[in-house]
């Protein structure tokens, strides 16, 4: 059963106020709390109990899958494997997300490994949100691993958001794209306190006309640390772009490592990285509109991470 704390976390990570429409699998404190399948989308527990397989039939259109995870018991540590098989010509939205509520002294950790097998011409929008809360001294740790295998002319848009409350995170994302496939990643991250967030991407463009656009916008506050390491590899005539745009505040530290590797004469690859503090004249401008300095800062950050 889902309690009040878990309900609130579900709202944070998956915008769920009630049971979602379509297929879903809600995991709470390492157990399945609710599941629904549809005629086109099947969710099956793996035999060894290590996770689930989500099978989306070819040609499935305008359906969604929600697979949120909630941890509200202190001291839980789990590794979960979720595999998505997206059939040819499907067009679906997948919403994942993990929220941890830790009031205890022990660390809580969820390591979700998501593998996507995207069929030819299929279109996927994937949204993943991370959220942590609770005033215990135990750490809230999330280490998501994502692997994406894209067949010809498929497309995938990934939105990765981690705005609050996660003490430590190492995100590893790998993608392999066949001819004509397109991958778009939009990562938004805010760290505060003494949080640590590392995000690594390796995108291999293996077929002619494959393209990738990996963009991160982040804000690092207090004494937190962020590392963004994004590598785009062009193995065919392809195009790739990666960008990191970060606001640094207080005593935070940020390392941006955009990398390009061209193994084909016709691979066109671009990287950009910028780190800077909030411009003084931005704050002054908003203060002349009647905001306090703190309100101005909040508006600037909210806009930047929107």
């Amino acid at each position, binding site marked *: 059963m889902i309690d009040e704390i878990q309900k609130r976390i579900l709202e944070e990570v998956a915008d769920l106020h009630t049971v979602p429409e379509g297929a879903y699998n809600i995991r709470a404190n390492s157990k399945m709390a609710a599941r629904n399948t549809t005629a086109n989308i099947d969710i099956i527990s793996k035999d060894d109990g290590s996770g689930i397989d989500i099978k989306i039939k070819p040609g499935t259109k305008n359906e969604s899958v929600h697979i949120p995870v909630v941890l509200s018991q202190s001291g839980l540590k789990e590794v979960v494997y979720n595999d998505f098989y997206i059939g040819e010509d499907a067009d679906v939205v997948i919403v994942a997300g993990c929220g941890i509520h830790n009031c205890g002294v022990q660390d809580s950790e969820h390591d979700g490994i998501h593998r996507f097998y995207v069929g030819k011409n299929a279109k996927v929008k994937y949204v993943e949100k991370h959220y942590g809360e609770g005033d215990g001294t135990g750490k809230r740790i999330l280490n998501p691993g994502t692997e994406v295998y894209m067949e010809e002319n498929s497309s995938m848009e990934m939105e990765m958001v981690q705005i609050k409350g996660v003490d430590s995170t190492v995100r590893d994302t790998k993608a392999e794209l066949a001819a004509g496939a397109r991958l778009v990643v939009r990562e938004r991250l805010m760290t505060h306190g003494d949080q640590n967030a590392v995000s690594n991407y390796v995108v291999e463009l293996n077929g002619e006309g494959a393209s990738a656009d990996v963009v991160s*916008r982040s804000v690092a506050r207090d004494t937190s640390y962020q590392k963004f390491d994004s590598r785009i590899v062009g193995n065919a005539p392809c195009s790739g772009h990666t960008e990191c*745009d970060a606001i640094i505040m207080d005593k935070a530290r940020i390392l941006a490592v955009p990398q390009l590797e061209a193994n084909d004469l016709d691979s066109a690859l671009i990287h950009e990285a910028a780190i800077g503090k909030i*411009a003084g*004249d*931005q704050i*002054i*401008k*908003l*203060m*002349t*509109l*009647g*905001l*306090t*300095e703190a309100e101005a800062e909040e*508006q*600037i950050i*909210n*806009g*930047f*991470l*929107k």
Partner: protein
Amino acid sequence: MLELKNISFDVADDKGQKEIIKNLSLTIDDHKFVVITGPNGGGKSTLAKLIAGIEKPTSGSIILNGEDITDKSITERAKMGISFAFQQPVRFKGIRVLDLLRIAAGKNLSVADACQYLSEVGLCARDYVKREVNASLSGGELKRIEIATVLARSTQLSVFDEPEAGIDLWSFQSLIKVFERMRKITNGSIMIISHQERILDIADEIVVIANGTISKQGPKDEILPELLGTASAVNSCDRLEKGGSQE
């Protein structure tokens, strides 16, 4: 009514202290349209920043409606009714024109209301209201949005720092109409720093600032003839003024 009393402003430079504003006193009466002009480097922009609270005077006092606001912050002054349009408008990644107008108005403006302000400054509202105030906007567009934020505040005193700076002549020609209209409809007082003859021409009062002090001050009819032909009252390109086409 805004009163500046014996304002001085010093900055430290290589040779020690440099006086930017020297013992300057000025009154902006209610419902007046005052244009400040004078040579570059004379202290005009500094004066505007002192009024908005972005800089603090070394000595002297600033009085708004009888209340001493010399030590008030930018935010407090904004709330008391002072608006300030920057010479170089600021860009914000992710903040939309609508968001900025809502912050300026201090309320959750409807899209229709926001569009009204954009139309006033000559922007097709539908195209702009959802756009981000970022580097994709041109200098002229940013200036118009900057002016729209001041309109949305509709405060007692609006200060504009060189609205003509950084935009092309063509864009400025249509911006002048915005000020002409503002002059007609506003309830508050307007202070514009400008060298443009057509802006000076709609002033109630002209103040010339040079070397940190007021060198001339008086009604438009009295001051403008003295300034014509000098750098303090530049005329726009005649051909453009007459709407002539390029040859």
